[in-house]
């Protein structure tokens, strides 16, 4: 067992740290971390941030060098996430483009698609969304209703997508459609690289319970795509989808370290907020609950480390890695649930009127998305039960 980083890895960390100090937006490291509220300026500032990352060579470190990446090792990716979480860096607006679409195109795209899109994804010139879920098909992607029909050499697309992250800021969409009906539910799916800047695509933001607008409904009315926009083969979109999901390997790292940081902020609150003259942490109920959460968060992080070890030794993650997302998202909810509870009556306040500037209230409301997005906890449990424990498949599947 060895938890130390090599000299080379520490050098990598130092290089990134130094770069962040110089290049983060002005005042960011000192705690002035406000991003513009309105979509236009928000979008511009995040695109600018990605441009800055790109110019520094930090936009897509896991990509191969030939595409403008660094060929980063898994450990370097982990360090990258640790450092980005540490400075609470602005979000990567083109997360989907960089971590999912581009790697999938590198693997399965045509030469023309690679030439057209990969460079623009890297620089932030082109922001991507992914059109998976539909009103009738949440976590069950085989129940798609959106159709693409060939007419006069073009594909005409009709349907509705929902929970489409970043669609209101995006230029292109990695879109799942049905191009034929089949007995087998995984067949007849085709993936298009849809141009969102056209009349047939209408985006309506969905306001979340925490006031944010990250998701959208996307209405497709006779939207047009061409054969050149298809990824992989017509009707074989399921294989593309699986390939894309496998590229999401580093997503968990960011979540694990973010959870750790969020928990630290709750500890900070418990140490500083006084109730009846004594810090919250002196209350045995608070101490006990936080120590329990500490153990479980530490356990989630260590699980992740165990899976990294497995990946490093075997070239791919173990089956147990599917536990990580479930554990981390459930714990995120529990941490802020507890953070609300221990604030007592003052916990009903929000924003600047609340303790700790309303950080816990904000995060608490946002945390409800954690166990739904990216596959609900229930779907994750089915997957784990069936793939890892070998239990029989759910009825109807």
């Amino acid at each position, binding site marked *: 067992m060895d938890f130390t980083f090599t000299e080379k890895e520490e050098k990598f960390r130092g290089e990134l740290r130094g770069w962040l100090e110089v290049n983060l937006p002005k005042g960011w490291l000192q705690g002035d971390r406000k991003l513009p509220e309105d979509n236009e300026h928000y979008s511009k500032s995040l695109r600018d941030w990605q441009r800055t990352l790109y110019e520094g060579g930090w936009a897509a470190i896991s990509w191969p060098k030939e595409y403008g990446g660094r060929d980063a090792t898994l450990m370097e990716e982990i360090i990258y996430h640790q450092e980005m979480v540490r400075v609470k860096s602005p979000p990567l607006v083109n997360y989907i483009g960089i971590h999912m679409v581009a790697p999938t195109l590198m693997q399965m795209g045509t030469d023309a698609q690679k030439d057209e899109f990969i460079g623009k994804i890297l620089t932030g010139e082109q922001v991507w969304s992914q059109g998976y879920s539909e009103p009738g098909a949440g976590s069950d992607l085989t129940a798609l209703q959106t159709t693409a029909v060939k007419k006069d050499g073009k594909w005409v697309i009709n349907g509705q997508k929902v929970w489409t992250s970043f669609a209101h800021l995006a230029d292109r969409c990695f879109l799942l459609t049905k191009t034929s009906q089949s007995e087998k539910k995984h067949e007849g799916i085709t993936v298009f690289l849809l141009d969102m800047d056209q009349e047939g695509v209408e985006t309506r933001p969905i306001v979340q319970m925490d006031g944010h607008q990250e998701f959208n409904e996307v209405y497709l009315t006779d939207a047009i795509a061409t054969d050149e926009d298809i990824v992989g083969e017509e009707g074989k979109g399921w294989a593309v989808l699986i390939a894309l999901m496998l590229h999401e390997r580093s997503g968990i790292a960011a979540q694990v370290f973010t959870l750790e940081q969020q928990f630290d902020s709750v500890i900070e609150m418990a*140490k500083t907020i006084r109730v009846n003259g004594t810090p919250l942490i002196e209350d045995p109920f608070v101490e006990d609950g936080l*120590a329990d959460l500490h153990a479980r968060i530490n356990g989630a992080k260590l699980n992740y480390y165990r899976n990294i070890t497995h990946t490093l030794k075997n070239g791919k993650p173990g089956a147990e890695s599917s536990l990580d997302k479930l554990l981390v998202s459930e714990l995120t909810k529990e941490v802020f649930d507890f953070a609300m509870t221990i604030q007592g009556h003052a916990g009903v306040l929000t924003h600047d009127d609340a303790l700790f500037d309303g950080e816990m209230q904000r995060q608490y409301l946002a945390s409800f998305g954690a166990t739904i997005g990216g596959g609900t906890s229930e779907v994750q449990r089915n997957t784990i039960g069936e793939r890892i424990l070998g239990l029989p498949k759910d009825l109807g599947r």
Partner: protein
Amino acid sequence: MDFALSEEQELFRTAIRKYMNNLNGTEAARAVIDGKLDVVKSAASGLAEMGVTAIPVSEESDGLGLGALDLVPVFEETGRVLLPGSQLETLALAVPLLESFGTPAQKAARLPNVASGASTISVAWYEKGTSLFPNSFCCVAAKTENGYALTGTKTLVPVIGDPDVFITGAQTAEGKSLFLVKASDLSSVRTLSVVDETQQLAEVTFDAAPGELLGEPGNAADMLKHGLLHFNAALCSSMVGGMDELVKMTAEYAKIRVQFNQPIGRFQAIKHGIVNMKLDLETARSLSYYAAWAVETDAVDKVAAVHSARSFISKAYIKAAGDSIQIHGGIGFTEELDVQLFLKRARYYENYFGSVRDSRKATAHSLGWHSVPAKRDAVPVS
């Protein structure tokens, strides 16, 4: 990054598991319930033959000089079959205490016998109505011409497998102190009724029993606290082994048991219940590995590492056993199945040399969450 047991450690696990399979799983534990205590001794000598008892003993004392991580596979596999015996107390508590605080003469007298399997050592700490870290002991050690004479009564003393020596605590002029007392010098031993019938606890009485001072007088609590880090790490491994077996047997049952024309594992209520056990198991395993690593390497966060593991796993083990009984349905409520044995073992360990609350307190204090020092009951005082 390398967070896994080594190849040698995994190979050793395979050997221990094979031996446990030869013992027919929980058969030894069930034999104890039937009063057939011979199995405890024969299993102990089997483990000694495999070299298990030599693992934590230093090479100068005829041991292998290995670390806490090398005990992980051993205790996971013995925990998986609920093997009765005092291996945990001997190898993970008495040996670290003797290695750290024993005089060269004490080490020479005791440790080679432990390494060979000839001697097992248990711990007589609790007194009636006192805590793990009492402010003082009723049991007193009076100075004599050539040592100490101990008088008093200890309870909740693990005695399975007939340990020949006890590490015990008694009051001296300097404060609470640790002593070694021979089993043959006890004036009486009264066996207690225990929920987990695969274990044996006793109330033991000293009547001017010769006691051999271990370490500095007045330091009993601090020494025990140190020893308990080793002990709790090993205890966690044992509980992880039990949890692993629970997940395995529950999943197997859910695949074959048919209700409403379906294997019950197809129903989400059942499936998700088993998945939750699995989630806890993997978290428990990660925490226990890290605890053992932290003890072995004397890491700065070893107190938090061990006590986080202990508090989480104690609760998770009980929950896993309880949920397993529920998923097994009526048959799970019977003596016929092993599940109930795991539940009783989990409950037996819940407060064993410290409670969940104690461990959470220790975690919070070691992480510096409090600006004021701990009260007397959180950090032991002499």
